[in-house]
Each structure stands twice: as C-alpha cells, then as structure tokens.
C-alpha cells in the first residue's frame, strides 16, 4: 500500500542538521518498508509467509511486531487481526509503530518539536509553530474539505480510521461482512500504533465499538466517533481546541 509520509520539524536547528534528521527518518521508513512490505517478495514478511525463515531467525523488530499484533488481537476481542485477510499482514501495526520509532529517533537526535504524519495518522512532540500546541483537524466523514473537530496536542498521537475513503475495507471478523455502524473513529493517545489499532478495531466492531472505546479512556486513549447516521460521540478528555 502506498502511503505518503509528511514530516514537519519545528526546532530551531541549523539547516544541515534538519536535513540530516529528515534523511535519517526517511532511511528508517524505507528500511521498514523493505522488511515489512507485503508487496515485496524479498521482505521479511513475505519470506516468513512462505516458510523460508523460521520465527526464531527473524529480526527482533519482526518478532516484536508479531508479539504486539497478538497482544492486540487479544485486547480487541479479535477485532484487530493481522490474519484477517488470510496470510500474515501486520501493516496495521507496522505503520504506527514505525512512526513511533521514527519520532523517538528524532528526539534522540535532537528534535524536540516535530510531527510525522503517515497517511493521516500522526505522532507529534513538543510545541508546534510559534510555541503553541499542534493543531490537528479531524476530517469530516462526509465533507472531505471540512473538519469535524480540531484537536490541540503537544505530545501524543492521533489516528483515524474510516469507511468513507476506501469503502468497505474493514471487516468484522465475527460476521465476515464489511464493518458498519461507525463511519469514522479517531483515537488520541500516547502511542500511535495503539491509537491506530484501536481506531481500526472499533470501526470493525460497529456501534458496540463506542462502549469498547470508552473503556480505553482509563488507558489514556480518548476518542471521537461518527456513526453511519451522523451522530457524533466524543470522550470527555478529548483535547478539542476551544
């Protein structure tokens, strides 16, 4: 799957260092792509799928991703399923995880203020432009040029899953049919990989996902959701801009 990644760095750093930060981030994301792509025959995922490498011989990252996927399968009552489409496809975790790692590496390399957006799933750190929080719009699920909410964050992640862009690409594993009931789910929390997985799982659950999302609040994950018939739900701690 093609995904566009945007990086914005707000630190007051010399240009060469900024260029290096971006280059190293891109290199990492390409490395992840080479190892986890389901489209590249020589990726670790594809070789593992074909049984060419045993789990024990896989990279630490690969085993970590698989562990997290099975944790999520359990924590989402099976609604997050890296095997939903048949063969292993950990993309739903890898995207958020790779951005989390990229952001941590940026921090270690001296960038305290940045965001990375991978196809509309965003991890940000520190203050945004002008020292204010980053302002993140949540796309309106029917009007592409409008927003449903504007969020303000300094450190944290925002992930949105919806049925509006790709049609029925999220399936309810219990019924085997396309997810319905919720049109858009946004999850805000400390970790992008979890926020993304939670948003996708809730979308797959349909309206029962609202109650499930409510239980994530105690873990630090706030949410906003829109039903197929246009009702909007928000958790009380959602960082909505005033």
């Amino acid at each position, binding site marked *: *799957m*093609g*995904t*566009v*990644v*945007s*990086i*914005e*760095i707000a*630190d*007051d750093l010399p*240009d060469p260092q900024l*260029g290096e930060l971006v280059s190293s981030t*891109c290199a990492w*994301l*390409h490395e*992840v792509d080479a190892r*986890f792509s389901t489209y590249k025959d020589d990726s670790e995922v594809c070789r593992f799928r074909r049984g060419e490498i045993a789990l024990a011989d896989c990279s630490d990252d690969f085993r970590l991703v698989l562990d997290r996927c099975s944790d999520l399968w359990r924590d989402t009552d099976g609604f997050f399923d890296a095997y939903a489409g048949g063969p292993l496809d950990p*993309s739903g975790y890898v995207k958020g995880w*790779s951005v989390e790692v990229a952001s941590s590496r940026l921090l270690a390399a001296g960038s305290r203020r940045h*965001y990375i957006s*991978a*196809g*509309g799933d*965003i991890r940000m750190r520190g203050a945004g*432009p002008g020292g204010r929080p980053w*302002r993140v*719009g*949540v*796309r309106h*699920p029917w*009007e592409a040029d*409008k*927003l*449903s909410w*504007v*969020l303000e964050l300094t450190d944290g992640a925002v*992930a*949105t899953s*919806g*049925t509006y*862009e*790709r049609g029925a*690409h999220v399936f309810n594993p219990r019924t085997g049919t396309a997810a319905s009931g919720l049109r*858009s789910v946004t999850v805000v929390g400390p970790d992008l990989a979890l926020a993304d997985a939670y948003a996708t799982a809730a979308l797959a659950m349909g*309206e*029962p996902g*609202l*109650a499930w*999302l*409510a239980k994530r609040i105690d873990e630090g994950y706030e949410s906003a*959701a829109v039903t197929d018939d*246009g*009702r*909007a*739900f*928000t*958790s*009380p701690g*959602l960082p909505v801009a005033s």
Partner: protein
Amino acid sequence: MRRSTAAAVGTLTGAALILGVRLSVQPPDAPVATAPVAQEQDQVEPEETGEPAPEATSTKKPSGNKKTTPPAEEEEAGLKAGTYKGKAVTNPYGTVQVTIKISGGKISSADATYPTKDFSGTINPNAVKKLSEATLAAQSADVDTVSGATFTSESYVQSLQAALDKAGA
C-alpha cells in the same frame, strides 16, 4: 510505507522549516456548514421540559455538557421545543436511551440512560457513559495537519513523486 520519502522532501525555509506536503489546510473564517444530522427521534414523546422521565430499570446519567464538542450551529428547522426520548438501543453491554431537549430550534441538552446493572466483572460499568453524543458539526479552521482515513494509491504516490522531482524538491 512505500515511497515514504515522497513527501519528506521539500524546501528549507528558515529556522522553522516545513518539510513536505502540507495536508489540506483550511482557510480561517470560512462559514460553518451544516452536517448530516440524525436525531434519534423514534418514539418521540414530547414532554414538558424539565426532568426527563426516569427509566424503570436504569439510572439516568448526565452525558456531559457537550463542552468537548463543537457548538451546534445548525438550523434545526422543524424541531419543536420539548423533550424527546430516543429509541432504546441495545448493545452487548445493555440498553442505551437518549433524551434530548429542544429549545429555540436547537438541541439544548442530550442525556442518556445507560445500563448499570448486570455488567460482568470485566466491564467497567462507568465506561459506557463516558462517550457523550452530539450532532456532528462541520467546520473549517486553521490547522497544522489533518487526521483522516486515507487510501493513497500507488499511482498517486508515484505521480506525487514525479511532481516533486520536477519541482526539484
């Protein structure tokens, strides 16, 4: 994940730089548009405004003051003042029923009953009431980035890359 550099190249502009494609940033002060609105108005039961009727088997809980949601600015033409009880919707955790009050053609409050009995030990009985409902509002605002479900085709990415190449980015 492919072609992740596509948007991660750009122009260096001074100390605070912007690298890459800015997602659609809305102009400020654009008019607020109305959004699809779906009121749960089945079984409408107009009542006197005031205390909504208590439920026999569940406890009424306030759903919050909607302070975390955008103000409802839609013109709810045809909404009559009064209190309306929505359809009781059953989910795996019980039954939820929303009561709304209408005044001045707008929803002035929305409360809901939530199941408080018969929860299994694994379910936090306080959890289900934590998501408060409002009507969806569409707005435009000045933002740094947009979160949304995206499907970026390979061809789109390739085209974007080509354009960036042409631009010498």
